[in-house]
């Protein structure tokens, strides 16, 4: 998608119209990006510069807020333990999703089971159930299994929230794998694991990456389950942030710095892998 084709409309439009549309595009995009920019900028301010009714657009940037988010200051804990939990939960659940979803997608596409459509619907329908309706049973089950406030609990639950989408996406990618290739491997007597490892995974690795990215985003950003089921030992980054719901003292710069750090991993991953994101979201329709 690097290639920038001049479309027909471009060639026909008058120069002025083109210019105006270009300016409009920039304005609209910048409006959408502004809150993110503002968050990062405010994080670079001192509290004096941040807490003003006439915003300071020119200010002396400081990394003091970022540093204090990192180290913990003013009674607030530092972010690192939360980050650590977030990373563990996100990475492990994403791997687990791929591990479970790939064979399932295989059984729904390449050698489909008889009622594959119903199975696919079952997976998707679990996404439509309100999580909030299950939170009390989840809490009680977790308590009985001694899994409350444990990263393993979030790993299991995040695997469950992402698995349906992953099965669905991977299935679309698997459908793109040329049949002859798989057939050839099968004739050679390759079992499922070998087929996957030797033939399928190399072909769909961009699709796998796209799926992993989507799972990563949703797991990293999840709040509801985390706030209800963890406190300290399993608490993830969003839990750190809700400490700011009731602010005290001038806090805008500190909050913005914390929010920026919280968003950074997913922002960077998403920016770096934009094409994967498009592929993933359009369910493999775009190669």
């Amino acid at each position, binding site marked *: 998608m690097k290639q920038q084709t001049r*479309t027909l*409309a471009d060639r026909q439009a008058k120069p002025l119209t083109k210019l105006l549309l270009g300016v409009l595009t920039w304005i609209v995009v910048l409006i959408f990006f502004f809150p993110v920019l503002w968050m990062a900028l405010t994080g670079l301010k001192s509290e004096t510069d941040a807490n003003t*009714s006439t915003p300071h657009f020119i200010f002396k940037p400081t990394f003091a807020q970022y540093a204090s988010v990192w180290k913990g200051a003013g009674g607030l804990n530092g972010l690192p333990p939360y980050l650590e939990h977030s990373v563990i939960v996100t990475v492990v659940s994403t791997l687990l999703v791929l591990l479970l979803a790939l064979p399932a997608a295989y*059984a729904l596409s390449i050698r489909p089971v008889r009622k594959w459509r119903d199975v696919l619907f079952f997976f998707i*329908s679990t996404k*439509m159930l309100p999580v909030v*309706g299950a939170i009390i049973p989840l809490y009680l089950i977790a308590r009985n299994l001694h899994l409350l406030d444990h990263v393993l609990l979030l790993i299991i639950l995040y695997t469950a929230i992402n698995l349906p989408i992953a099965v669905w996406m991977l299935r679309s990618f698997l459908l793109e794998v040329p*049949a002859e290739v798989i057939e050839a491997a099968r004739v050679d007597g390759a079992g499922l694991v070998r087929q996957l490892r030797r033939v399928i995974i190399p072909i769909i690795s961009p699709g796998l990456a796209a799926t992993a990215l989507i799972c990563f985003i949703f797991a990293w950003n999840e709040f509801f389950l985390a706030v209800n089921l963890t406190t300290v030992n399993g608490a993830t980054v969003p839990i750190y942030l809700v400490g700011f719901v009731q602010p005290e003292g001038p806090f805008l710069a500190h909050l913005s710095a914390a929010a920026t750090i919280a968003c950074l991993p997913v922002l960077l991953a998403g920016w770096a892998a934009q094409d994967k994101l498009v592929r993933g979201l359009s369910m493999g329709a775009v190669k």
Partner: protein
Amino acid sequence: MVNVVDSAPPVPKVRTARPGRRRSESWIRRVPLVPALVFMFIVTQLPFVLTLWYSFQRYNLNFPTAPRDFPTFWNYAQIFGDHIFRTAVLNTVLLTAVPVIASVVIGVGIALLLNRYVFGRGFLRTLIISPFLVMPTAAALVWKFTILDTTFGVLNFFLRPFGLGNTNWIGQHSQLTIIAFLTWMWTPFMVLLSLAGLQSQGEDQLEAARVDGAGSWRIFRALTLPQLRPYIELGVLLGSIYIVQAFDGIYIITAGGPSTDTTNLPYYIYQTAFQAYDIGRASAMAVIVVIATILIATVALRLISSIFSEEGMRGR
């Protein structure tokens, strides 16, 4: 570069199984599915069985020793007389439908703009996807305190020249605030999908239409929109699935208020469970929501079928 659903490579032919091996063959096919299915069944269905069971009990955490009266329809009776529940239903519809529609319309618009040659197009695309990537909790806090705040919010600063510099957005325009927040988060998603759709459009077809003297609007309606349709349907479906459960933004920005203006079903169930500690009633609400969802989903699932019907057939 770009490929579409119906121009996909040839379909793998399912081997016609020999009669004697049919049964074992079909079992072998199921094996790879088992771990995922079992996992999903345990994690998502078992809690709902408990929810169903609780919904027939008078179970309030505040009164652990009170009789549970199992089975009772008391919770369901309460809900049918509960005007806040009705408000929450209407709010859920409003706070889902409007953001979904708005983000689709704006998303298609931005995609059309970005599909042209624009200076710095790659850079702009990088910027536009950001709202979808940021953590909703973080974004909600930033919106609440640094953007929408009456005094310190930068929005009111920008609006001051227009005489709107003292607007109390969160208090007086709470529904608009939540709609804007959700639309902002989900528009990038729609942009990406629409861009994918637009880039799968054949230039030749457009060229031909233009030679025939068709205007831009006609070309858009007759060629571009049908081309985008499956992408938009997918966007609407996924967008609705996620937005109908919107919680983070409401919890942080408006806390469901003022009054019950932004109380949607997830938030109301949360309040019933964790402010009233009325597990029975919260469970009954969840059961009602699940039943309603199943009804709506039957319609929605038909929509998915249309999305992957072409390639879906190839699986056979």
